[in-house]
C-alpha cells in the first residue's frame, strides 16, 4: 500500500524547570493511504501527543514526520498553518464547534480560511466563497444533516455535533483526518451512527483516518490497529 505518512524516531519531551518528562521515546510509524488506523493504549501513554505532532499543532523534540516525503517538522509557523488548512482535518472528543456560527458556517470555516487567506486555491483550482458554502452544504447532506444547516451547535444533539465536526474536517479534502476519541463523549447508539459515517467516508472517498481511542468498537472497524506502550508503537 502507498505510504501517506512516515514517522521516524519521534521523541517528545516536556520540561518543568530542570525536570524532563519523556512522552514519546523514538516512535516509528507508517500510515498508508485510505486506511483507518486506530491507535490504542493506556491513558498517559502519549496517544494524544502523537496525534498533535502528526497534526502539526506541536513540534517534536527530535525525529521527523514525512507527509508524502515532505518533512513537515522543517516547515515555518505560517507554512504549518497552511499545511493544516490544506492537508489535515481534525475531529475532537468535544466536537469543538464554534458556538456563534451555524452548522453550515462551522463546516465552511476551513474553506473560508483557505478562500480568504490562501486565495481559495484547492488542488490548484481556485474556488469561490459560494462554492465553499455549496460544498459545506453537500458535506452536511452527506452526513445526514440537511435539515440542520442553519442550526447553531447549542440546537444540535451530541451525535449531530460530532457529524458536523466530521463534515468540517472534510471541507478542504484533507490528506488525513485525525480523530481524538471521536466517540468519547456520546452514547453507544450515537457512537455507532458516527462510526458508520466515518466508515462510509473512508469507503466512499478513500479518506485516510488516524483515530486515537479507547473504544474497541472503532478498532474493530479499523483496517489496522497499533498499540502504544511506553512512548513507542507495538503493532
Amino acid at each position, binding site marked *: 500500500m502507498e505510504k501517506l505518512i512516515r514517522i521516524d524516531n519521534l521523541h517528545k519531551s516536556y520540561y518543568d524547570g530542570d525536570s524532563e518528562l519523556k512522552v514519546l521515546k523514538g516512535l516509528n510509524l507508517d500510515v498508508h493511504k485510505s486506511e483507518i488506523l486506530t491507535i490504542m493504549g493506556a491513558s498517559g501513554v502519549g496517544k494524544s501527543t502523537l496525534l498533535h505532532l502528526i497534526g502539526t499543532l506541536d513540534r517534536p523534540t527530535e525525529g521527523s514526520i514525512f507527509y508524502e516525503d515532505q518533512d513537515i517538522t522543517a516547515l515555518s509557523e505560517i507554512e504549518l498553518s497552511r499545511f493544516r488548512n490544506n492537508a*489535515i482535518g481534525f475531529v*475532537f472528543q468535544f466536537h469543538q464547534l464554534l458556538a*456563534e456560527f451555524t452548522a453550515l458556517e462551522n463546516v465552511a470555516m476551513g474553506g473560508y480560511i483557505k478562500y480568504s487567506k490562501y486565495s481559495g486555491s484547492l488542488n490548484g483550482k481556485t474556488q469561490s466563497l459560494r462554492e465553499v458554502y455549496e460544498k459545506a452544504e453537500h458535506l452536511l447532506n452527506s452526513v445526514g444533516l440537511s435539515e440542520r444547516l442553519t442550526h447553531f451547535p447549542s440546537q444540535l444533539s451530541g451525535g449531530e455535533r460530532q457529524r458536523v465536526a466530521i463534515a468540517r474536517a472534510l471541507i478542504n479534502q484533507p490528506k488525513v483526518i485525525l480523530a481524538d476519541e471521536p466517540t468519547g463523549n456520546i452514547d453507544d447508539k450515537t457512537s455507532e451512527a458516527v462510526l458508520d459515517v466515518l466508515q462510509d467516508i473512508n469507503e466512499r472517498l478513500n479518506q485516510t483516518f488516524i483515530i486515537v481511542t479507547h473504544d474497541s468498537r472503532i478498532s474493530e472497524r479499523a483496517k489496522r490497529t497499533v498499540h502504544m506502550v511506553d512512548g513507542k508503537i507495538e503493532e
Partner: protein
Amino acid sequence: MKFEWFVASRYLQSRRKQSFISIISIISIVGVSLGVATVILVIAVLDGVEHGLRDRFLANEAHIVLRMIDHSFFGNYQDRIEQITEIDGVVAASPVVYSQMGVFQTGSEGITDTIYIKGIDLTQEEKVTGFSQYVNGSIDFQTSPLIAEAELREQETITGGIVLGSRLAQRHGLTRGDVLRLVVKLVEDPGGFGSPMLLVDFSNFVVIGVYESELAVYDNRIGFIDYKTAQKLYSQVGKVNVLLVRLEDAETVSELSPVIEETAFSFMEMPITTTWLETHSALFAALKMEKMATVIIEALIILVAAFNIASTLIMTVMEKTRDVGTLRTLGATRGNIMRIFIIQGSVIGMLGTIAGTVLGLGLCWLLSTNILRPSPWIAIAVIGILILCQTIITFRRLIPTSKALKIGMVFFWTLTVCFVLYCLVKPISLKELGFSEIYQMNQLPIRVNWFFVGFINLLSFLICWLATIYPAWQASNLNPIEALQYE
C-alpha cells in the same frame, strides 16, 4: 468579506443565550462615545468662550493703542492720524484723551468712586470702535436737549454730556438726564495758612446715554465725553494722550504695530504701542492653558474607555480560547487570530467614536440654538412610558426575535433619546445664573472647531486601536493544544 471580519463581526453580535460579551461591547461603545462627546462639547464651550471674548474685544476695542511712555499729552495728532491711515492695512485712527476721574455723589462728603473717562472724537471713534452701536440714548455730547434741561433744573453750569457704562450708571442709580459730578483733578492752593491745601476741581456732566457692550470691564468703569471738552478740562487744547488704530485684519497687529509707531512718532518721543493681543495676553494664555488641560483630562477619559475595550477583549479572548484553538487547527495563522480581535476592538472604538461625535455635535447644536421646545414634562412622560413598555416586554419575555424588529427597537429608542434631549437641552443663560459679569457674555457660547473634532476622532480611534493590541497579541499567542483543552 474576509474571514477575520466574518468571525469578528459574529463575536460582536454574540448570538449565544449568554449575551454577556455583546452587552459588554455595548457598554464599551457607550464608554467611548461618552468620552468623545464630552471632549467635543467641552472644547466647543471653551472655544466659544475664547472666540466670544475675542470677538467682543475686537468689536469694542481698537486693535492698536499708541501713547507716550509717561502718559503725557502730545500735539499734531491730526497729522499723525493722516500718516497712520495711509499705511496699507490700516482702516482708521482716532484721537483720545484718556483719564481717570472721581465721582462726587450728591449727599456724600468725598469721592465715592473712580471711573475712566475717554474723551473721543465721535466721527473718528465711530470708524475705530463702532461706538454708537453700543449706546442707548444720545451721543450728542454738546447739544443734547438733556443738557439744557438739566442746566435749567439744577441751576448749575453743565460742562457737557456723558455716555456712561450701563453697569456704572446702574451702580450709581443714574439714568438719562441725571447730573453726574466728576472730580477732574485736585489743584494745590498755595495761598493758605500752614501747609498747602488741595482744592477740588469739579465738572458737572449730564448723562445723555448708556453704553452697553456686554463686556463688564467697560460697562462697569467707563464714561465717554467729547475729546475737546476733555482737552479743556486738562488745559491741553490741541493735544491728546492716546491714539487708537483699527486694522483691516486684527491678526496683523504684530507686523503693523512697529510700522505704525515709526510712522507716527519719532524715536525721541518714546512712544509705546500696545496691541489687543498684548492687552489680553494673560486672559488668552489662561484660556489656552485651560483648553490644553481640558484636552489632556478628556483624553484620559477616552483612555479609560479604551481600557474598558481592552478588558472587554481580554474577557472575549478568555471566553473564546477554545475557539482560538479550533481556528488554529483549521489553518488560521497567529496573524489571523490577532486581526480578529483587533477588528473587534477597532469596531467598538469606531462605533463609539462615531456615536460620540454625533452626540457631541448634537448637544453643541442644542446648546446654541434658540428655538421653542416642548415642555420637559413631555420628555419625562415619553421616557417614562417607554421604560414601562420595555419593562413589560422584558418581563413577559416578548423580546423580538427577528433582525428587523430588533433594528426597529434600536431605531425607536434612538429617536426617543433624541426627542428627550431636544426637549431638555437648551441654551444656558449665564445672565440667569449670575455668571454674565464673570464671563462677559449672556449665553454659554458654543463654537464647534471642526479641525479639533477630526483630531479627537483620530485620537480616540488610535487609542482604542492601541487598546486592542495586547489582548489580540495574547489571543494569537495561545498554544492551540492548551486552547483546545481550556475549560
